[in-house]
């Protein structure tokens, strides 16, 4: 960060600007932020692995019915013939075979593979949409607070403080519990209602995390020379906001959105584990683990959904960390 003592400080400070402007000292090509990020990201094998797994998971979630059609059985289909009726556990311990890739559940013998695959759908759908909701609210609020300052900033910042002071899980549980009770008044029922509710609750309570970061970034961007330059050329508020500031916020938004998704995956799993998320018989990873608790002598029942959560969260975290390293010139490894 600091220049070496013997270096001619002033000239070194000027050079990067000239290069960026395409002054062509040594025919240096101007690279966009995206290109630089991609260059960094390509070298980061771990992040690429994370990205690969993320893409794979999304594909699995989208094509879940197809995958289950080929490799498994419908997720809610009972296979009592796979169950040892004296112990209610799967025959042969797990029931894993070419037909049932992850084995079967105790008692009713549902196909674990299909349930884990379908669980990916719920998990990713809720996590991604909730993240999008947080990003939209957080960005709008953060940009407003940072750009307008004054009382707007005070009000929004205090609101964010209040949100951050909430015991998130308890509030989410309460809200889902309360709204779930009045479901007949809402016009939608069952999974649709629950999914919508979870997206809303998770997304709505998480926006201050993004909002804070965006506010800070906007605050510093607002004072930068290129914004001053635009303003002195006669640009008005909306132009500065959308053409000068917002494009520079894409990097932090991308990074923190990617890092918020795994948090939301965990959150959804936790709510389903506690029984306030998506209700049975719909397959969710958290819900499966909460059922598996009663069958700790059948460890594979808990292992597969647990690993599914682990791999999903880990993949998003690895990718997000890599993205941050690639997009943030300050971070070093």
């Amino acid at each position, binding site marked *: 960060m600091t220049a070496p003592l013997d270096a001619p400080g002033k000239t070194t400070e000027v050079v990067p600007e000239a290069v960026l402007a395409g002054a062509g000292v040594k025919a240096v090509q101007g690279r966009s932020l995206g290109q630089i990020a991609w260059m960094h990201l390509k070298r980061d094998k771990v992040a690429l692995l994370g990205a690969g797994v993320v893409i794979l998971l999304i594909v699995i979630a989208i094509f879940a019915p197809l995958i289950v059609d080929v490799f498994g059985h419908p997720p809610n289909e009972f296979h009592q013939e796979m169950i040892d009726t004296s112990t209610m556990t799967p025959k042969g311990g797990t029931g894993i075979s070419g037909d049932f890739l992850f084995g079967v559940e105790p008692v009713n013998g549902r196909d674990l593979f299909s349930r884990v695959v379908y669980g990916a759908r719920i998990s990713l759908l809720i996590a991604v949409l909730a993240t999008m909701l947080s990003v939209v609210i957080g960005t709008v609020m953060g940009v407003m607070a940072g750009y307008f300052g004054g009382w707007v900033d005070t009000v929004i910042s205090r609101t964010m403080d209040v949100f951050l002071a909430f*015991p998130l899980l308890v509030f989410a549980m309460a809200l889902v519990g309360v*709204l779930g009770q009045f479901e007949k008044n*809402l016009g939608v029922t069952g999974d649709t209602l629950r999914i919508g509710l979870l997206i809303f609750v998770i997304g709505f309570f998480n926006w201050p995390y993004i909002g804070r970061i965006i506010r800070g970034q906007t605050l510093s961007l607002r004072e930068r020379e290129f914004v001053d330059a635009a303003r002195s050329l006669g640009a008005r508020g909306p132009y500065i906001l959308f053409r000068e500031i917002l494009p520079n916020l894409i990097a932090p938004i991308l990074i923190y959105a990617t890092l918020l998704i795994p948090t939301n995956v965990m959150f959804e799993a*936790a709510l389903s584990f506690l029984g306030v998320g998506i209700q049975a018989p719909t397959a969710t990873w958290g819900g499966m683990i909460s059922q598996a608790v009663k069958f700790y002598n059948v460890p594979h029942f808990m292992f597969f959904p647990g690993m599914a959560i682990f791999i999903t969260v880990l993949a998003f975290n690895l990718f997000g960390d890599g993205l941050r390293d690639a997009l943030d010139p300050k971070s070093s490894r």
Partner: protein
Amino acid sequence: MVTYIIRRLIGAVLMLVIVSMVTFSIFFVVPRIAGATAEGFASRYMGRSANAEMIAVTAEKLGFNDPLPVQYGRWISGVFVGSEYDTGATIEECPAPCFGYSFIRRQPVWPDLVDRIPVTLSLASGAAVIWLLCGVATGVLSALRKGTVFDRAAMSIALAGVSLPVFFTGIVSLVIFSYGLGITAPGGSFTPFLENPVEWAYSLLLPWITLAFLYAASYARLTRAGMLETMSEDYIRTARAKGMKESRVVVRHGLRAALTPILTIFGLDLGLLLGGAVLTESTFSLKGIGDYAVQAIVTNDLPKIMGVTMVAALFVVLASLIVDLLYAVVDPRVRLG
């Protein structure tokens, strides 16, 4: 300093007012927007056996037809002076601090919570000690030995730690250590500290470690990042240049600066946990505040949920207040700025 404390106290009170309003809204305004009627509320409190006429009478008597600000005021005044609920048939007493009255169980919420606070407090405090020590130590060592095998291994474990849900690690460790090897206490065991401290520690060992692992992982990552940043500051170079011992440079100059943001997060985390380590408690069947919240939701007992939510929020606000005050003691810029 005094003005700072007063300002901060006023802020905390304001925060509590807002949090209480939001809590109230969740339970009374949100359902109303969703289309619930006063009778709908009353029937929640009456149970399923009541007929329509009884419900209408109760709705009136419990004040569900009153304007919302009146209902909010009544709820808040209950916290300070207690309240009575006239259900028509009986008058239910709820002495101060009345954080709600469960009509299903016919008992006030607050005494239940008081019963459960020791469990949650034991769980949170023990885990906090472990994760703070382990997390920070790992983070510092990793930062000092950046790029070594230790650093890579520690950070991989930390990343795995933040990626594993606590209810999964909890059950797996219960199955292995308690039911398999039999070296730790089974789920649901708790002995009050004053009764037998050794038994207390033994029964909570596994929940502590499980909960601490999750937090230690994220604290290690945070500490490492913070240490890497501070250790490249100019004043560290200065400290080294004047011949200070490396251990002193690291602890007194590096760690001290890196720790302050960690402490803020620590305060909030601890506050959140005191309001119920929901997942850990429900995984290990510990009868704490978080478990109470889960039970309340399972049994659809709205006053209980509302009470526990409010108390949980109270802990967070108090925790952040304490952290801020400590900050002012440690860092003069805060109280003067």
